[in-house]
């Protein structure tokens, strides 16, 4: 549409004034050069920083500035050559690039403003670093606990198929059990333990999963370290869906403690026997006395011809009865002093109560102390060792006697009464054993300490101060409680009352086992 020859070069407009011409050439040249260098820098920037947002915008800027630079170079060309058609086309291209860039820039502006500022990024970065550091420290701390604590710890993974994998055990537990972590970590329990022990252990793990709460128990295990008694605690860990995925466990070797406990019970039993020795000697001397008197009587009267055979037969029968009486006392002493290694069993507490009372009833009667027993039949049993409960009752009886005698010495009162009661509480499923006396009661200041080991208010040589604490231990091991209260009677007398509460189980179909062994509920008494 344009004729080449019909236009004049732009220099004519400037009257070919050299200074003016050169001013335009220099300015347009420098602008063009600058405009050409800027896109190069932009392209170099975005090609190296591939993470920069909105890269296409930089490319758009590059095209726009490149186009601007070209128009300036072309202005120099048109000073001498009138190619205004081409110049116009270049400007049109530049205009297009400019409009696109301008529109895009306005559209982009809010998005660019929403981009995080470098300071924000830096702070976020720092916060992240702090968190990482905290987590590292926390992990270090828990790993430190796990690895350095002297408590035996282990983690068991519970697989959806119900199998148990030993995830890890800590060094303390490895040392205590003799198990090698590198050979058992990550393996199924039955892969590294003999079948019998594995079955025992898996049974406990399953019990924890079934109970869905922490459990603790004592168990005897034959591990590489030898046959030891363990006190183990297990706690279930759930995932977000509530499924138990892990068991956290701790195990403590209580073999030594058990042995010492046994020793202590035995020592205290012997001490009880010691304090009972005087009474026992009296018990023995009675039948012995009767035997001798009747034997000698008979001999003397036979010598005088005054002992017909029928009479002699009666006397010999009487003597035989007295030897049985002595035999029973000896048997009882022997049973009581025997080391009680038997396992816990279901037994009738009434038997222990009667046996203990029979052992002392006569001795106490001589001291004018009456012992009454009231057993409400309930067909209930408790778990434990019958002789140990007898020991507890004997200990309470002996304390009651001492209290009554001490009070008598002080106020001259004559009446001594010890009442022993045994009943079943169907509401609480508990067997309740009470031993009350008229010994004046326990001073309030002393009451909180009476179950402490070696605590005694008796004179030196009269009490070890172990009786009640051993009793406490025995009752505790049976899953029960022992408490002491003071009581007052309407006639002004006062006394102490010890109450032992033991979990009841049915006498019929009672399970043998540990403390967990609870059978069906008892019928009411």
């Amino acid at each position, binding site marked *: 549409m344009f004729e080449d020859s019909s236009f004049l070069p732009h220099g004519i407009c400037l009257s070919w004034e050299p200074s003016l011409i050169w001013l335009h050439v220099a300015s347009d040249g420098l602008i063009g050069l600058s405009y050409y260098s800027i896109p190069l820098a932009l392209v170099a920037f975005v090609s190296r920083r591939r993470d920069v947002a909105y890269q296409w915008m930089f490319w758009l800027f590059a095209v726009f500035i490149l186009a601007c630079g070209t128009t300036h170079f072309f202005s120099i060309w048109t000073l001498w050559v009138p190619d205004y058609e081409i110049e116009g086309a270049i400007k049109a291209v530049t205009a297009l690039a400019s409009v696109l860039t301008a529109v895009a820039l306005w559209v982009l502006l809010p998005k660019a403003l929403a981009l995080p500022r470098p300071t924000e990024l830096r702070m976020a970065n720092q916060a992240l670093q702090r968190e990482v550091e905290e987590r590292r420290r926390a992990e270090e701390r828990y790993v430190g606990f796990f690895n350095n604590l002297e408590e035996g710890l282990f983690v068991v993974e519970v697989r959806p198929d119900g199998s148990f994998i030993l995830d890890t055990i800590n060094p303390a537990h490895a040392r205590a059990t003799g198990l090698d972590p590198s050979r058992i970590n990550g393996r199924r329990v039955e892969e590294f333990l003999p079948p019998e022990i594995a079955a025992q252990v898996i049974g406990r793990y399953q019990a924890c999963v079934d109970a869905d709460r922490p459990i603790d128990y004592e168990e005897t295990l034959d591990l590489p370290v030898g046959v030891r008694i363990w006190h183990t605690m297990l706690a279930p860990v759930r995932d977000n869906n509530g499924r138990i995925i892990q068991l956290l466990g701790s195990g403590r070797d209580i073999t030594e403690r058990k042995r010492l406990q046994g020793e202590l019970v035995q020592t205290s039993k012997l001490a009880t026997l010691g304090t009972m020795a005087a009474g026992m000697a009296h018990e023995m001397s009675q039948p012995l006395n*009767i*035997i*001798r*008197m*009747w034997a000698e009587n008979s001999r*003397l009267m036979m010598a005088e011809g005054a002992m017909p055979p029928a009479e002699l037969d009666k006397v010999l029968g009487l003597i035989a009865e*007295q030897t049985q009486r002595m035999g029973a006392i000896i048997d009882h002493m022997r049973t009581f002093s025997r080391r009680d290694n038997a396992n816990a069993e279901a037994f009738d507490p009434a038997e222990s109560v009667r046996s203990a009372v029979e052992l002392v009833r006569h001795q106490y009667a001589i001291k*004018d102390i009456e012992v009454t027993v009231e057993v409400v039949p309930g067909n209930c049993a408790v778990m434990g060792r019958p002789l140990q409960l007898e020991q507890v009752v004997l200990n309470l009886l002996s304390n009651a006697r001492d209290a009554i005698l001490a009070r008598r010495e002080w106020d001259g009162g004559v009446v001594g009464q010890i009442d022993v009661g045994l009943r079943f509480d169907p509401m609480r499923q508990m067997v309740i054993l009470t031993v009350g006396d008229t010994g004046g009661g326990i001073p309030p200041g002393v009451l909180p300490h009476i179950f402490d080991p070696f605590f005694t208010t008796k004179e030196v040589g009269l009490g070890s101060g172990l009786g009640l604490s051993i009793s406490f231990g025995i009752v505790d091991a049976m899953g029960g409680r022992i408490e002491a209260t003071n009581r007052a009677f309407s006639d002004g007398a006062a006394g102490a009352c010890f109450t032992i509460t033991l979990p009841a189980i049915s006498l019929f179909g009672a399970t043998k086992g540990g403390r967990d062994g609870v059978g069906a509920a008892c019928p009411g008494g």
Partner: protein
Amino acid sequence: MASVRHVLVAEDEALAALAIQQYLTFKGFRVTVARDGMEALSLFEADPADAVVTDLRMPRLDGARLIRRLREARPDLPVLVMTGYLGSEDGQEDLTSPAWEPLVVLKKPVSPQDILAALHGFSV
């Protein structure tokens, strides 16, 4: 000292008391039996005996207290004590001391002959 004819036996073991009663009766004594110290005291008050044979450990009133009460009425009452122990036990008094005479202590098991010998001793 008058000869001993009537003996009061205080003993809570019925069979032991019976043995003593049978033997002493056979030997010509009149024998009264009490089952404890209180009963012995009332029997003695109703019908004073010439000598007392007593156990030490008895319900209601023990042997030592019984002797003291009886001696209030008769300070020279001959007493024969049968005991499972000798010396002090449970804070019991030492009955072997001369202050308690006339008193003989027999250790259980006791022979009826020893009781007889002691009663004859009192009669001398």
